[in-house]
């Protein structure tokens, strides 16, 4: 019963701020003059430009996933099995892109491969008119997903399993293929699906790098809403996206369940060793070079461009409010963003924490399992769906929040909750249920048990979850762009709007704002990374 009590708040939150907007989208898309018109779906699908968008969305996601695996799997191996100086720093560097706002990444790649970018200046090469800019930006983003998911498991696989196979007569490759690969398979599948999901619903990157030629479903939904004002087509597209994402998540949940097979896991510290022989050193060098070119260079170029004008001209310009693009000085976006992000983080931690506590019990029933899946939806269902849903559902009675500043933090919290749950849940589940029982038998009430046993163990996870929620809220673009008010832009929205206007000054200001955003996010992440690896604490 107590568990049901815990679930009430998150369930109510999701009902009001997720299910209700989604229902509004369905009604807007399929209800014409009070009657259901399911034929609308086929009408929309019949348009050739829509079919083109669907096709592009799918194949670029497949290509991005394949390319990410190709580039990141060697990295996963190096991180899992090699011990080298600076590994901790490198691990942090690799993770930074994952929490960087899409807008920053888009801007950075624009600075690298776009018109007037570094490659353009040096060799006259431009990639922003080709799909390669998008694909490379997607690899940039998702490199960490593969390295963390696959590499994390790889580093915990007992090398003696492979040694046992070798002793039974398997060659080095045969041992890898028959022992390690099957063990890694589910992790690779799960990582691939996550990458596919993220790239399938890619918005900010494609919005900035796609130009008029390339458009994903997300971008098309935004275009239909804000440029063509065809809300019912946008609603139908949102539903299509909803179904596709639901299918991907279902497959993902299935692979995750299959991954829970009994593997013999060991402490990662004992499986890593220094590289041996020229082959292994070459591999390490290749991975380091990839990280330098693909992950570090774009960000370095971004920073360099932001100082492109003499002195701090672009930064200084951010403080003036006569640009005509905004009603306020762009620099005020920094304050807005921080305020929104702090509020969103508080909401996400409370909602996500309660949900994780409710989901902790392993013997949770079907009802609770369904709730688990529900919590993941906003992560995949894409920010644009959330923003669009807020736009059409929460600006009229019975719930009119249009004029309220809380709308933006609410949307950002919705996107952040899955991260909080995903971070907290494994830690809470790892708390041995008998420790709680031991406390109860010694006289601790259920609330005392939580405070005395659970809280000390999850305190760090709670901080990490809050940090993630903060970074996600700070960089949130897809939902915010729909609902942020013109006089209160957030950083990503301001960057996108600056990029949307021609002129070197606007371009430079976009670079400068992106740099500020990147620094804030990177600092947040590096603090997290320290929390995560600080082993001087109690556990």
């Amino acid at each position, binding site marked *: 019963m107590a568990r049901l009590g815990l679930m009430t708040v998150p369930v109510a939150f999701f009902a009001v701020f997720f299910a209700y907007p989604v229902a509004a989208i369905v009604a807007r898309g399929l209800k014409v003059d009070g009657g259901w018109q399911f034929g609308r779906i086929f009408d929309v699908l019949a348009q050739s430009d829509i079919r083109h968008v669907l096709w592009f969305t799918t194949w670029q996601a497949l290509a991005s996933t394949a390319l990410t695996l190709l580039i990141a799997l060697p990295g996963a191996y190096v991180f899992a099995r090699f011990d080298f100086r600076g590994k901790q720093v490198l691990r942090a560097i690799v993770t930074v892109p994952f929490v960087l706002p899409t807008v920053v990444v888009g801007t950075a790649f624009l600075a690298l491969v776009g018109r007037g970018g570094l490659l353009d200046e040096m060799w006259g090469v431009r990639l922003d008119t080709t799909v390669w800019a998008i694909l490379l930006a997607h690899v940039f983003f998702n490199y960490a997903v593969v390295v963390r998911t696959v590499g994390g498991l790889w580093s915990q696989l007992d090398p003696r399993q492979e040694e046992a196979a070798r002793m039974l007569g398997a060659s080095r490759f045969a041992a890898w293929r028959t022992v390690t690969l099957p063990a890694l398979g589910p992790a690779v599948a799960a990582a691939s699906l996550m990458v596919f999901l993220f790239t399938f619903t890619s918005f900010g990157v494609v919005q900035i790098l796609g130009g008029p030629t390339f458009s994903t479903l997300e971008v098309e939904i935004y275009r239909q809403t804000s440029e063509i004002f065809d809300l019912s087509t946008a609603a139908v597209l949102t539903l299509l996206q909803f179904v596709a994402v639901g299918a991907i998540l279902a497959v993902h949940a299935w692979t995750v369940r299959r991954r829970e097979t009994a593997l013999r896991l060991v402490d990662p510290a004992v499986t890593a060793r220094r590289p041996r022989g020229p082959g292994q050193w070459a591999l390490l060098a290749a991975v380091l070079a990839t990280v330098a070119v693909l992950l570090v260079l774009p960000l370095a170029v971004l920073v360099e461009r932001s100082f492109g004008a003499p002195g701090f001209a672009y930064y200084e310009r951010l403080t003036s409010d006569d640009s005509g693009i905004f009603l306020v000085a762009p620099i005020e976006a920094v304050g807005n963003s921080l305020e929104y992000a702090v509020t969103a983080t508080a909401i996400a931690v409370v909602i996500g924490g309660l949900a994780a506590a409710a989901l902790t019990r392993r013997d949770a029933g079907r009802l609770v399992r369904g709730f688990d899946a529900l919590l993941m939806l906003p992560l995949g269902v894409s920010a644009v769906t959330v923003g669009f849903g807020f736009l059409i559902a929460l600006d009229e009675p019975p719930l009119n929040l249009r004029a309220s500043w809380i709308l933006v933090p609410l949307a950002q919290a919705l996107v952040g909750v899955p991260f909080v749950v995903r971070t907290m849940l494994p830690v809470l589940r790892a708390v041995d249920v008998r420790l709680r029982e031991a*406390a109860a038998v010694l006289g601790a009430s259920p609330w005392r048990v939580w405070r005395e046993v659970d809280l000390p163990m999850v305190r760090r996870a709670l901080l990490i979850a809050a940090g993630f929620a903060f970074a996600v809220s700070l960089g949130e673009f897809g939902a915010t762009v729909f609902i942020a008010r013109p006089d209160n832009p957030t950083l990503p929205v301001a960057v996108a709007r600056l990029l949307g206007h021609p002129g070197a000054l606007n371009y430079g200001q976009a670079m400068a704002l992106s740099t500020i955003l990147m620094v804030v996010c990177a600092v947040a992440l590096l603090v997290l990374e320290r929390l995560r690896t600080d082993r001087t604490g109690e556990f």
Partner: protein
Amino acid sequence: MRLGSSGATGEFGMLLNLEGATVRFGGRAVLDAVDLGVTEHEIVCVLGPSGSGKSTLLRAVAGLQPLDAGRVSLDGRDQAGVPAHRRGVGLMFQDHQLFPQRDVGGNVAFGPRMHGESKGERAARVRELLELVGLPGSERRAVASLSGGEQQRVALARALAPRPRLLMLDEPLGQLDRSLRERLVVELRELFGELGTTVLAVTHDQGEAFALADRVVVMRDGRIAQSGTPLEVWQRPADEFVARFLGFDNVVAATVSGQVADTPWGKVPVPEDAPQGAAALLVRPAGVRLVAPAEGLRCGVAARTFRGTHVAVHLQPQDAPRLEAACALREAPEPGDEVGVAFDAAEIVVLGGPSAP
């Protein structure tokens, strides 16, 4: 003062009483209508193979496992609806479950803290208990730095700290090595005797149970198979299951008439008061005497196992189940020898319950 033990019944002095306690997991009764009473200051040891429901029994008493039927009472009061933290019983978990983020002192002080004792009282109690379990001055040590035996002592101190009216131990010495176990079991018994603690322990190790308990309760498939003093259980196992669980293998189907039983090993003498008719028959290894091949049941020696104080000789009669005999070191025959077997009525028990097919 410790009360006399065997099968003490009646409400007087009864601290714990289970009546028809039943727990089902998915239709299977893990605890099947168990009746069990523990009087004050008594040490009761529940003995059974894994899966016999003994841990579930403890969890049901602790309030960690709700009953599907029956009731648990403490001091005559029904505990239905009383949550674990208000039952006032202590439970020492199988693998101790010390709180990893607290030091030794923090673990031991946890119970008193939950019961609202002041800081000074707690510190005194912790000091007293650590002294009692032989770890004086180790308040500040991290639990990760403790050896298995030390963890066991800290877990015991932690369980005793809130002064539970009933202390329950789940496989208290299960994870420790043999010599340590044998030493600790003696220490535990002395300690409980001094403190007058009422103890309900479960174990799968008969040596542990016999050394620790005033009364042994043997469980099988969620039911109580036998209850009695260690001596009673050892001398007169209730049925074939208990006999085999205690390590006796010389059990066969027999038909008793008068003072003789008809068995696959031939005619075997039984004690005077033996029940008549079909039954299972236990022959203790000490009751198997080796004689000249012509003078008894003719057997071949299949194997010998050195047991420290004696040698277990495995004998193979023709067309009959194997027999184990206990021989003095010097008298044991070699494998391959031919011997005769005679039986000693004093070491033979006619068992109740269903006999082997």
